[in-house]
């Protein structure tokens, strides 16, 4: 049985299928799709589209976590880069807007990487600094208001479509392929896993652990910047107070649901993105269900617990023993 099915990812795929089935139960039109003004329209598209920011964040976060790090600042970086993009959108062309926003994300990542890799700070504290200060920086850029823009190019990034799919989804897919090609198409992924598994041993074996750590934080910053630009483009404005708020936690959750250990080492990009989709499938289902909003967080917590239990080796061990006991009785 286990030989036929992929061991890794089975729990996540099962969880996604179960949640999709529950969504179908609470909302019979869940799988309906139609074309609206040249783009696909339906709850499934909403799941993909709304899941994009967390999926992008999780792409960077999974690499950081694989080096045994963590990046709490991604939500704040989203706010900074969204604010920069929105402020420049109506006066500059899209290439400059994107370059400025992604450049800012890169600088934020460099800062985090510098604190962790060069100064040797603990990642949770090092990135906490930018998590707190970053939102303040974003508020300074927007002067505390919601900066709106009407530049059609930037709006297209959030609301346009390519072959019927929302642009953000296409971007996220592109980033997944690009990240996958870079880390799995070379030895980079292995070196990152080695760094997370045992930094000292890797260092002695000749792995440039500092460079590895620095580069994963930079990539995480760039991914967060892209998520921030998309979030701003989506609402045609930069909301420094709320953009990306608490999303760092969703991104970490997505990575963990994707089976990557917070203790570093082995990681999976695809499963982290799948984790982000599981979270969003659940969120969309809650919104469609019509339950009072007071239940939102409770439902989310129960589902996350269930998914993590499914992955826990001890728990599946217990379940296996229970099944065997039942069989011997019968």
């Amino acid at each position, binding site marked *: 049985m286990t030989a036929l099915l992929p061991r890794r990812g089975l729990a996540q795929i099962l969880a996604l299928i179960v949640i999709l089935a529950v969504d179908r139960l609470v909302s019979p039109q869940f799988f309906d799709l139609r074309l*609206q003004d040249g783009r696909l329209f339906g*709850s499934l598209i909403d799941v993909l589209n709304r899941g994009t920011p967390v999926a992008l964040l999780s792409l960077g976060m999974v690499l950081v976590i694989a080096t045994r790090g963590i990046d709490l600042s991604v939500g704040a970086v989203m706010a900074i880069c969204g604010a920069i993009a929105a402020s420049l959108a109506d006066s500059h062309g899209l290439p400059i807007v994107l370059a400025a926003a992604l450049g800012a994300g890169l600088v934020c990542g460099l800062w985090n990487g510098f604190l962790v890799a060069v100064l040797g700070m603990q990642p949770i504290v090092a990135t906490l600094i930018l998590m707190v200060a970053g939102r303040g920086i974003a508020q300074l850029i927007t002067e505390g208001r919601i900066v709106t823009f009407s530049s059609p190019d930037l709006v297209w990034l959030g609301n346009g479509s390519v072959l019927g799919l929302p642009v953000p989804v296409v971007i996220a897919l592109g980033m997944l392929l690009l990240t996958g090609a870079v880390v799995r198409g070379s030895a980079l992924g292995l070196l990152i896993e080695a760094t997370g598994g045992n930094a000292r041993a890797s260092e002695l074996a000749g792995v440039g652990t500092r460079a590895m750590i620095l580069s994963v934080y930079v990539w995480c910053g760039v991914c967060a910047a892209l998520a921030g630009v998309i979030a701003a483009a989506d609402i045609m404005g930069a909301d420094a107070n709320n953009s990306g708020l608490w999303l760092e936690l969703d991104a970490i959750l997505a990575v963990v649901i994707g089976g990557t250990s917070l203790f570093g080492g082995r990681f999976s990009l695809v499963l982290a993105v799948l984790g982000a989709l599981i979270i969003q499938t659940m969120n969309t289902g809650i919104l469609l269900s019509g339950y009072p*909003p007071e239940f939102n967080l409770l439902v989310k917590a129960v589902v996350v617990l269930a998914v993590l239990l499914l992955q826990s080796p001890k728990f599946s061990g217990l379940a296996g023993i229970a099944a065997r006991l039942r069989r011997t009785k019968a």
Partner: protein
Amino acid sequence: MTPKALSAASAMAALLLALPASAGQLTIGFSQIGSESGWRAAETSVSKQEATKRQVNLKIADAQQKQENQIKAIRSFIAQNVDAIFLAPVVSTGWDSVLKEAKEAKIPVVLLDRDIDPSGKELYLTAVTSDSVHEGEVAGDWLAKTVGTKACNIVELQGTVGASVAANRKKGFDTAIAKHPNLKVVRSQTGDFTRAKGKEVMESFIKAEGGGKSICAVYAHNDDMMVGAIQAMKEAGLKPGKEILTVSIDAVPDIFKAMAAGEANATVELTPNMAGPALDAIAAFKDKGTVPPKWIQTESKLYTAADDPQKIYDSKKGLGY
């Protein structure tokens, strides 16, 4: 200007500021919460305008959302022996001792925008606040009047779960539409007072209600969520403001922009002018000894497309929203 001349000028300016205000001119200390939202920024700028209009010397202390900073600011206002203190309390409890100090110094305190714990009623002169239950009622009454007798399915975008403003705006709206059995709230979810969540929740409402065709009106607890919801409706090929009625609360500039474009119908104002009525109450109290009522309710004014939204947008956008 040379550095020397500059320092001489600033010394002079400092001297001028230190001089006692001319007879009759009031000096009022205002402990503002900080810059938590666009509305708060607008309140600060309107307070300055209202004070200038009445030739009152208003000293604003920004507390950066911290009660300890507000308490410090009030103590420093007491030390400066100001004529009155305005306080926009960041939390509702913990004010007893500092307000007692103000009372002993015979400095009247006026609360702006938020009330404090009822145990301290005698510690302040009056509170100028909006009634958020009433705001919801005004929104509900407008919708009932506009819809008339035909059946109307309403979807509601609630504020943050647990926020008293959200609970009150819901209560007021529910009370207003309860008199009209043809109005029914069919879906209600929280949009956390933000544009992004307002848009996401509205997207799900549209799917859950058969592509939005059965939705007759949207009620949002604040304008920001409505701005997001309007985008969601447009993307779904619906016509907000025409096919689907919209009513929300706050009256921020961007909702007037949507109104001018024919995409929003009504908003209820949470006025940023809390200082105006407070200044009037203080002036009357100082001049004639008129004691104001314990609660001065600000007007919850309804704005619709008939009120020249473009003009209101132009007048509001510079206030810092």
